[in-house]
């Protein structure tokens, strides 16, 4: 993937919430099933019953559907409560093609600043597979896999 395209697809989001970093971290991770818009932001849509982030490095980040099917979204790569957690991000497609997600929680006044960065698209471009097979280019993430997970 070209540098330009990579740059275009680095997602950064910042928001401040009126809650302590401890609570913000807790709600974001342990409490994710209470707020994550599962019906639209999941692979199983309305079939999704819950979302789980296992609280440790190496833990699973996944959705569980009503029939018990579990679909991985990523693996926790950093677990530093209440400051930060990170995971790979590959809802609905192969882990080798995943991006990276990082969420930081910093005290700000009486609240907490949350910074979310969704990046790592270049991993696909660097993949040996892409050199061998043109169709494994970065855009397949969107065209066939990403679309399925997010559409």
């Amino acid at each position, binding site marked *: 993937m070209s540098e330009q395209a990579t740059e275009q697809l680095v997602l950064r989001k910042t928001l401040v919430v009126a809650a302590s970093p401890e609570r913000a971290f807790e709600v974001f991770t342990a409490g994710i099933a209470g707020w994550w818009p599962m019906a639209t932001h999941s692979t199983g849509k309305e079939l999704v019953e819950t979302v789980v982030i296992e609280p440790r490095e190496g833990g699973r980040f996944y959705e569980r559907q009503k029939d018990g099917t579990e679909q991985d979204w990523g693996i926790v790569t950093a677990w530093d409560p209440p400051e930060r957690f990170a995971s790979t991000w590959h809802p609905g497609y192969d882990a080798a093609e995943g991006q990276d997600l990082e969420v930081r929680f910093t005290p700000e006044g009486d609240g*907490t600043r949350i910074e979310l960065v969704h990046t790592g698209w270049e991993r696909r471009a660097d993949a040996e597979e892409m050199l061998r097979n043109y169709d494994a280019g970065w855009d397949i993430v969107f065209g066939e896999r990403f679309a399925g997970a997010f559409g």
Partner: protein
Amino acid sequence: MTAYGDVLSALADPTRRQVFELLRRGPRPVGELAGELPVSRPAVSQHLKVLKDAGLVREQREGTRRLYAPNGDGLAALRDYLDGYWDEALAAFKQAAEEPTEGDDDE
């Protein structure tokens, strides 16, 4: 269909992805593209039309020649979609994080 949906659909086809990638090296006429691809010229024209409709490719004239060039609007639409995806999730998170906690007076 929304713009990002058009982009995703347009890029879902391997040949169209190939056409799109060829154009990222610079504007080309349809005949030249057809020469580098294992499909007919009318097929390339059809792919270019879909890419154009999705905002990934634009047409430009150079004298009597018609050239096709990459158009940043399509990827921008996809970017907007991803922005919206996280905005929606984080708005829901903010609401949950700011809810009073039950039976927990010390927070």
